[in-house]
């Protein structure tokens, strides 16, 4: 077996694929750079170990063609100058390629991923408190004939549970090195590096006893990526054989604890997944998350808002008047500011999501809600992607890859954008601040909070209805399996939590920094050009002057600006769609905002800021909300009523206004038709819901 491995690297290759492999292998050898892959079950402490091994020297990308996250870093093995490439595989229970994650992991191990050489060694992260099931993956890893070193995590927790693990014995039985690590305290890291270096360079192949040669050949052939039903009997036999081997190993190497004793996790679960209190606590946690986002985030948001305002004023004072200054202040600074200001909310939301995931509560939420989800035809696992979609549909849609059934996954993707994402928050908060601030229901509940909750509820309700319909029509399929681990409760690792939080916020900012600023500039240009002939404005001003006795200079400026935007390209576009959106109570200005926000929802606020700041004196520090309240139509009636604001909010709950989401859906479903179907049906739904809101509201005497 040893010679087999060596030959694939050094022998003159016979087939074409082998040529590529050999060249890759050669190049790796020349540089002396090793490639190590990190594999392990979800919740085994893999992320913590990865962080400890690589420090902050890591990058996150996607595997080409799919959205499975590809995390890579450099690991200074033995303080070597030439650090090894460390590939963090997705969390896995098995390598049978039934899910996309498993398929990708398998491709990495087989060296079939572009620009990634076949790993020289594997680090298998094994949770000591859950040894048997964790070892299942190890047996599969060993079948790939790549040297494996076990990093045994949670050893101290195992000791507390009076589980005695004989690591030496374990190593002997598995014929691979086993190193106990405490990643947070960097314990065992050096020993792990030493063993990995040794294994990777000596290329000792472990031989295993649980499968016959025939079974093994069948297992590693590159053909059986998709196991068909007829193969399942053989597959089950192999699973059984692996677990039999593991049971023997376990009995020899571990002195088990008294299993009848309730663990701390079971005691916590006695409350958190209690039939009654569990649900109450779940609702309480969700409410707490939203409440804190809105109260905690206010201070930094105000500061950012004021900061960008001051920056704009400063730039305008310092620079000479002209197109460039206008572009800088009204286009770039206003556009970036309008996005960055919502960063505190996004950070907080991701902070909560990361903590919920890290502590193990997310799985409980799925457990509690599965019956409800399955009634709609969805998997309890769909809960997590959908909850993530409250922050942003993009990671949410990416998280659906944990759902194995493709139709189920597609249904979840299709409804994920109905969850009110952080990009809608600017719309909700500005509308509420402008028209519903300070009002209360029953004298003590803020109307703003109620409306906010109602918007979230509306999104969820529509999502449920759509999922129900989709699962009975286009995506009809039998209810898929729900087999999910409930990991033990753990204190969150704050380094992981914060890292994840900043990573996600960074991805959002990247998006904001590119798409949104670009759109802001385009929009600024749309409102800025064509420049009107001075005469035309003067004539119109002169007309006004004749009609009115005294007009202040600022009013003339205002009218100039208002003429300007009416004649701009944006104004024309807004006017063009005005007949369509008039039944929703929207005028052409909102029309401009809607057109602009089909790129990204949050753009509507920066667009409206530009439109309204163009139309007002720039020295006046009137805020956007005041601008909305004070805006008058030509006939003197208010442009915005509370009903208009509510209608706009309803539209934004349901409309598909995010190019990035469309792009992700296209990639995840591998079809433009699903992505376009999503845009189409959501826009139609949004239009009708907004129509009902506005016309219904008017019938009831509002607005």
């Amino acid at each position, binding site marked *: 077996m040893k010679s087999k491995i060596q030959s694939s690297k050094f022998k003159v290759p016979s087939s074409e694929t082998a040529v590529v492999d050999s060249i890759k292998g050669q190049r790796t050898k020349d540089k002396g750079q090793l490639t190590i892959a990190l594999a392990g079950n979800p919740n085994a402490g893999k992320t913590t170990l990865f962080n400890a091994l690589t420090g902050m020297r890591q990058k996150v990308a996607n595997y080409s063609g799919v959205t499975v996250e590809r995390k890579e870093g450099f690991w200074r093995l033995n303080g070597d100058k030439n650090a090894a490439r460390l590939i963090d595989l997705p969390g896995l*229970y*098995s390598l*049978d390629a*039934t899910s996309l994650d498993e398929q990708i992991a398998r491709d990495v191990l087989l060296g079939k991923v572009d620009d990634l050489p076949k790993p020289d060694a594997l680090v298998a992260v094994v949770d000591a*408190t*859950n*040894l*048997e*099931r964790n070892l*299942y993956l190890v047996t599969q890893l060993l079948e790939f004939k790549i040297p494996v070193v076990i990093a045994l995590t949670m050893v101290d927790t195992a000791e507390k549970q009076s589980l005695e693990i004989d690591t030496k014995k374990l190593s002997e039985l598995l014929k691979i090195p086993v190193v106990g690590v405490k990643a947070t305290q960097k314990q065992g890291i050096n020993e792990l590096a030493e063993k990995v270096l040794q294994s990777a360079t000596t290329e000792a192949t472990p031989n295993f006893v649980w499968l016959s040669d025939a079974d093994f050949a069948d297992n590693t052939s590159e053909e059986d990526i998709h*196991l068909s*039903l007829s193969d*399942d*009997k053989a*597959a*089950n036999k192999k*699973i*059984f054989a692996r*677990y*039999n081997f593991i*049971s023997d190993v376990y009995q020899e190497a571990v002195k*088990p604890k008294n*299993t009848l004793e309730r663990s701390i*996790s*079971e005691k916590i*679960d006695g409350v958190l*997944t*209690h*039939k*009654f209190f*569990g*649900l109450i606590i779940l609702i309480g946690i969700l409410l707490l998350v939203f409440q804190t986002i809105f109260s905690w985030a206010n201070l930094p948001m105000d500061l950012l808002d004021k900061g960008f305002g001051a920056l704009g004023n400063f730039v305008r004072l310092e620079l000479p008047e002209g197109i460039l200054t206008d572009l800088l202040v009204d286009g770039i600074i206003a556009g970036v500011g309008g996005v960055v200001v919502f960063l505190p909310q996004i950070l907080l939301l991701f902070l909560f999501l990361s903590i919920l995931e890290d502590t193990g509560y997310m*799985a409980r939420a*799925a*457990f*509690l809600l*599965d*019956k*409800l989800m*399955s009634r709609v035809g969805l998997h*309890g696992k769909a809960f997590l992607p959908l909850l993530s979609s409250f922050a942003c549909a993009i990671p949410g849609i990416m998280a659906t890859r944990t759902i*194995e059934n493709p139709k189920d996954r597609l249904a979840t993707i299709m409804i994920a954008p109905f969850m009110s994402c952080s990009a809608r928050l600017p719309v909700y908060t500005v509308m509420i601040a402008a028209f519903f601030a300070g009002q209360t229901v029953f004298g003590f509940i803020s109307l703003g909070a109620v409306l906010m909750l109602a918007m979230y509820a509306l999104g969820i309700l529509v999502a449920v209805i759509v999922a129900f319909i989709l699962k009975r029509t286009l995506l009809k399929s039998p*209810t*898929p*399996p*729900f*087999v*999910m*681990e*409930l*990991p*033990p409760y753990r204190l969150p690792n704050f380094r992981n939590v914060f890292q994840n939080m900043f990573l996600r916020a960074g991805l959002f900012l990247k998006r904001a920094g590119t798409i949104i600023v670009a759109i802001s500039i385009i929009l600024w240009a749309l409102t800025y050009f064509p420049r009107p002939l001075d005469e035309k404005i003067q004539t119109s001003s002169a007309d006004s002057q004749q009609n009115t006795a005294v007009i202040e200079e600022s009013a003339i400026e205002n009218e100039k600006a208002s003429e300007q935007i009416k004649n701009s390209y944006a104004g024309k576009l807004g006017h063009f769609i005005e007949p369509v959106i008039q039944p929703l109570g929207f005028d052409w200005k909102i029309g401009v905002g809607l057109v602009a926000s089909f790129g990204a929802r949050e753009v509507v606020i920066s667009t409206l800021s530009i439109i309204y700041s163009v139309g007002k004196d720039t020295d006046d520090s009137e805020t956007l909300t005041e601008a909305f309240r004070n805006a008058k139509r030509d006939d003197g009636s208010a442009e915005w009523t509370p009903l208009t604001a509510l209608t706009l909010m309803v539209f934004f709950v349901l409309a598909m206004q995010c190019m990035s989401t469309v792009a992700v859906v296209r990639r995840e479903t591998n079809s433009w038709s699903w992505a376009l179907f999503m845009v189409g049906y959501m826009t139609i739904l949004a239009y009708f819901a907004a129509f009902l809101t506005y016309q219904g509201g008017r019938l009831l005497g509002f607005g």
Partner: protein
Amino acid sequence: MNLTNLPIGATAKVVAVKGNNAISKRLMEMGVVPGVSVRVIKSAPFGDPLEIRVRGYHLAMRKNEADAIEVNEI
């Protein structure tokens, strides 16, 4: 006897995992193989899914999946 028929808190030995499909395969991968002992911990608020303890960890599954697991109560 199926796992579903077990009362909450009962311990049993798995006799067989029926069916040759994605469900039986996933259950076995997660360690529910013939010979292993399982304990029913609880059911979720709406009666489904079930939570069991197997090989020292906790696993949730729907009742129709638990139906595939044939057990002998201990």
